[in-house]
């Protein structure tokens, strides 16, 4: 399946290569560089590129291209999904997935890649198993290793891979047993010029951080499970139980994992927690444009809208801006024409606004489209869909765990057309 992997940085250098079958010369990446040159933006490089003898499938994460070399027919999503899993693993191990982090930990990276694929077919991709095989580097461990000469390769061979619950490592022990669940919902919406919603949907996830001793068996039930339109589960969730009783029953992996992600479709009515009043105009003939933006909260159920960030790609003709924010700070990059305004918290009594003028290129005609405005925000202690966890129970172990559930709503791809 996957023949080789090349890691390419933003400036087009191959800084790591790994082969699982015979060696493929790195010149195969020339086809990739060609495609990269043709694409105007880094995101526009096509994920699948055919070359005379190979196929290149790439993903772009953290400004690094992960380019997999394929020799014959394979479902492209199989490769893409795997590459993303590799990135997730690196992030899990090193905290960040940057070129520097990978270069610093090249040996661990190599050991990981070696375990994750055998002859190009995925072998161990579960983070719990990998962590038993290869311990993630920490400052303390690196120090100890250099002094004592011991290694970060696990002494015991992992048994989890062979058990009935391959996602959980065995022999877990904690003094404080705790289980935290974060219900995070993101609103994807397109709002049109007049302020009416064109499309809006909610994507939610439940991320868990479970640190429990032994082999706990958890059940999680919701007050209103009918809300969940379409769900996908971590492999640990017992599907039959969900089908029959709408209860999540599972033996959790150790540590952080995504328990479930769900979708509340556009057919349901979605509450939009912010509104935008805007007036952006360019006058024909004059080299000035007006920019006027006001934000306000609505349908927030009394919760504060925080960490608001507005960004907008202004037309190419705009040379500079002279704006005045009522709160927060704004920046405008004259090269990329990207305007960002870090608003902070919205105070319903005094709505934040950004007003001023834009200077346009002299003589250029007026841009025919107004810029789209992207908004990010966070609302704590609320799931916008109204989803509520009813209770969490633990079976199989004797101790009493500490349980916590947190709700949050965020903006996903939230766009306002002007």
């Amino acid at each position, binding site marked *: 399946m996957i023949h080789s992997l090349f890691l390419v940085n933003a400036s087009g250098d191959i800084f790591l290569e790994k082969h699982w079958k015979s060696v493929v010369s790195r010149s195969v990446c020339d086809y990739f560089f060609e495609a990269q040159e043709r694409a105007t933006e880094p995101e526009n490089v096509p994920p699948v590129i055919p070359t005379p003898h190979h196929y290149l499938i790439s993903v772009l994460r953290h400004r690094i291209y992960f380019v997999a070399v394929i020799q*014959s027919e394979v479902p492209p*999503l199989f490769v893409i999904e795997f590459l993303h899993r590799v990135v997730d693993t690196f992030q899990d191990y090193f905290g960040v997935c940057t070129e520097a982090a990978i270069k610093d930990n090249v040996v661990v990276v*190599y050991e990981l890649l070696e375990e994750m694929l055998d002859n190009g077919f995925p072998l161990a991709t579960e983070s719990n198993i990998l962590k038993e095989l290869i311990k993630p580097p920490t400052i303390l461990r690196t120090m100890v290793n250099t002094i004592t000469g011991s290694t970060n390769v696990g002494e015991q061979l992992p048994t989890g891979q062979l058990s009935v619950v391959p996602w959980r490592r065995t022999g877990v022990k904690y003094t404080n047993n705790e289980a935290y669940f974060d219900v995070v919902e993101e609103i994807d919406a397109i709002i049109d010029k007049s302020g009416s919603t064109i499309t809006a949907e909610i994507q939610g996830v439940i991320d868990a951080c479970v640190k429990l001793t032994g082999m706990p068996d958890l059940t999680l039930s919701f007050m209103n499970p009918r809300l969940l339109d379409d769900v*996908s589960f971590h492999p640990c969730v017992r599907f039959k139980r969900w089908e029959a009783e709408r209860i999540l029953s599972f033996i959790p992996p150790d540590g952080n994992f995504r328990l479930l992600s769900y979708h509340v479709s556009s057919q349901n009515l979605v509450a939009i927690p912010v509104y935008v009043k805007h007036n952006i105009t360019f006058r024909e003939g004059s080299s000035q444009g007006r920019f006027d933006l006001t934000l306000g909260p609505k349908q927030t159920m009394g919760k504060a809208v925080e960490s608001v960030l507005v960004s907008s790609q202004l037309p190419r003709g705009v040379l500079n801006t002279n704006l005045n924010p009522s709160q927060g700070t704004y920046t405008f990059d004259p090269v990329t024409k990207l305007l960002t305004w870090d608003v902070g918290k919205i105070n319903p009594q005094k709505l934040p606004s950004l007003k001023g003028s834009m200077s346009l290129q002299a003589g250029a005609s007026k841009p025919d489209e107004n810029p789209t405005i992207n908004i990010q925000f966070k609302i704590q202690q609320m799931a916008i869909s109204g989803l509520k966890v009813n209770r969490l129970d633990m079976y199989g172990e004797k101790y009493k765990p500490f349980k916590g559930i947190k709700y949050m709503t965020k903006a996903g791809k939230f766009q306002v057309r002007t």
Partner: protein
Amino acid sequence: FSGNSCDATSAPQHYTSLITTLKTNSGIFSVLRNEDLKEMLESSKESLKLEAMKRIVGLIAKGKNASELFPAVVKNVASKNIELKKLVYVYLVRYAEEQQDLALLSISTFQRALKDPNQLIRASALRVLSSIRVPIIVPIMMLAIKEAATDLSPYVRKTSAHAIQKLYSLDPEQKEQLIEVIEKLLKDKSTLVAGSVVMAFEEVCPDRIDLIHKNYRKLCNLLVDVEEWGQVVIISMLTRYARTQFTSPWKENNEKAFYDSEEEKKDQVEAKPYVMDPDHRLLLRNTKPLLQSRNTAVVMSVAQLYWHLAPKHEVSVVTKSLVRLLRSHREVQYIVLQNIATMSIQRKGMFEPYMKSFYVRSTDATHIKTLKLEILTNLANEANISTILREFQTYVKSQDKAFAAATIQAIGRCATNISEVTDTCLNGLVLLLSNRDETVVAESVVVIKKLLQMQPTQHCEIIKHMAKLFDNITVSMARASILWLIGEYCERVPKIAPDVLRKMAKSFTAEEDIVKLQTVNLAAKLYLTNSKQTKLLTQYILNLGKYDQNYDIRDRTRFIRQLIVPNEKSGALSKYARRILLAPKPAPVLESAFKDRDRFQLGTLSHSLNIKATGYLELSDWPAVAPDQSVRNVEVIEPVKEWAPSVGKAKPPKQDDKFYSDSGEDDHEEEEGEEGSESSSSEDSSSSSSDSSSSEGLSFCVCIWVNIPTFGPVKSHELLHHMTGKGLSARYHFPRQPCLYQPNMVAVQVTLTNGSDHSLEEIHIGDRSPASLNLHCFNTIERLEPEASVTVSMGIDFSDSTQAANFQLCTKDDQFSVSIQPAVGELLMPSSMTEQDFCKEQGKLLGMNETSATITLAAENSSSQSLSKQVLSVANVGVVSSSENNIHRFAGRTVSSGALVLVTAESRESSTALLTINTDKSIMASMLLRDLKQALAQA
């Protein structure tokens, strides 16, 4: 710790300094590097070796050549330090191909490790051994693979499945042998192995579909529990399999026939309505839950399975999940959108409710935008076109001009597909002609040209408008399009056309090739329709074209001149010039770029690229007639099979052919046995061999058993009704075989059937009463699927009494009390003896030990054959050959205590018979007599 510090001081001083040099100026040491590394590798200190190996791996990762160090590295292959060993493996696999001779030095280490008691070490040894691409060791690899394929640990078997592919790519000539291994591994019931072996199957022998038949149902049932990557591979293999084995569920005419005349209806009935093969249904049912997988590749592969295999009305279950995938990473979106684009051409209805999910955001990458546009266009119909067009209006204004151009094309397609909006679209496009952006204008011109070609009559106004715009347009494709339009409809714009030609004559030399060609075309057409005004202009242009740099243009000019300007050489063709140049031309069809992609299986690389990728396997068409269904049948083990092998071969009965549901049980055993794998297996074989040798009586019985005429179906009794058992029902019967577990037990076979709609787990035997009851339980059945049944055998020691054995049959959630009450005849086993022995034994058992009665035989039982048949059906005894015709003798022993039971039946005249039973178990005698009396008296 102290030991280490001792080492550090005793180590030669310069190594320590060496490390510091290496660490401080890591960039400069390139010249000395290899020498230093070699020295470090040869040192006696583990940490130095490790440091060196880490640096070497760093070099490999950067793509630098480190092959020089091979001899120094390979020495460390047997190191005790796990990390060091692993890094050496990495190195070895990378360079073994280049240094074949030296690589051979390491082989013996792996061969040794293949025999290690730890399964993970065996597996990793096989992994590395098979990754070394050295042709000389092919036989060693073959041997190792074969051995590992029968390993007790499923993890090692999985590794051997991976090794099969490696060996095949190294030496394709081993194919036949490898197929044998694959065949064996396909039978494996471990979920760990399933994905890997199917992968090997796909790589080595994807055409050997016959290997799948027997494993089909097992694979379907295991699928949910297989790891996610294996699921993808198995699903795509099963898709191909299903297309060759089942008939098409897509009968288009079915509904139509319903409304048709009476006679046709009859025909339809005779043509046999479509009934889906239960195996086909099984596949669809078992893959559906996987739509909920977090792995996008799994979801996509289920979606394509439904698309290619499910009845049309069921396909839409995948829609929701595909739309959910659109939230994932950009690359995932790209592939999913491509597949949705292909699907939406054939099945608009599937995605129409989700139309808004395909609305474009300004932050999407260009190729994502284009794909969304494609899908929106495919989804357009009379009802939603106005919404879509309104959305398109926003897109046309986009700053991403390539995307705006694509939108204009999409509008063109909507206009041709939906006649109601053609005019609206055309007007909208004409407005765009005054757009400031050139690409937008150019694209509009091209699209308008295509639209006008479909209905030119009403639109001379637009043509005039475009002619006016002509001067401002610089994009060559657009200019060429306008010229073509004017030429084609020159009779509708008689005043404008010659004027345009005049302008073109002026600028001809400065134009692009494509524009020049169209100018020549326009000139020719005008010459034919309006030669008075344009004759000179045409000749001028033709002269310019004659000396053009481009040979295409020169050729075209020469051709046109011969065609339209009559001279002595031109011959007959020029007569037809008008018909050639001004023939009515069919309007172009604007269709989706994804139109022809459905020739590829969805979700494949070939589909994504729209070219056939290497190794792409065609999806075959449905067969007209389904191939034999019974090839997939896997028989439930026959009672005889259970013990026959223990006599013949010295091997425990292999459960390979057993029904799939006991897979869990099987794995379980193996996992338990993993540590002492060798010892446990030898134990097994020894115990079974001792079984066969020690129990001569047993094999003795076999002979008798064979002698006895087999009688009708064995009577089976109800153990648990499915109403009381919450879906679980059980029946039992006495197979009348010696019990395998203990000689004083009666063998009982229990058939468990799951009549509920969910699978039952952990079926086992719980408490029993009386507590002293000696019972050999069957192994716990981990899982019993709905509709499935399984037969298990158990042994019960009834102690020669007919007292019922009570015990509890438990599932994971419930317990049911059941009891087995044996008939007295079942407590016996046949004994063989001669007539003399019989009489001798009978002589010893007289008086109190003799019970007899005269009975009246039913008419059917008066013949001697049927009489003995009746006796044998009641009691498990053996026939003793008799010299007298009217006397029948039967001999048996009680199972627990082995007491003799002798039965004599002497038939007399007027259909009566004297039954005599001699045994020291007098209670049994009277009970047996009663049973026999009843059986013989009734018809």
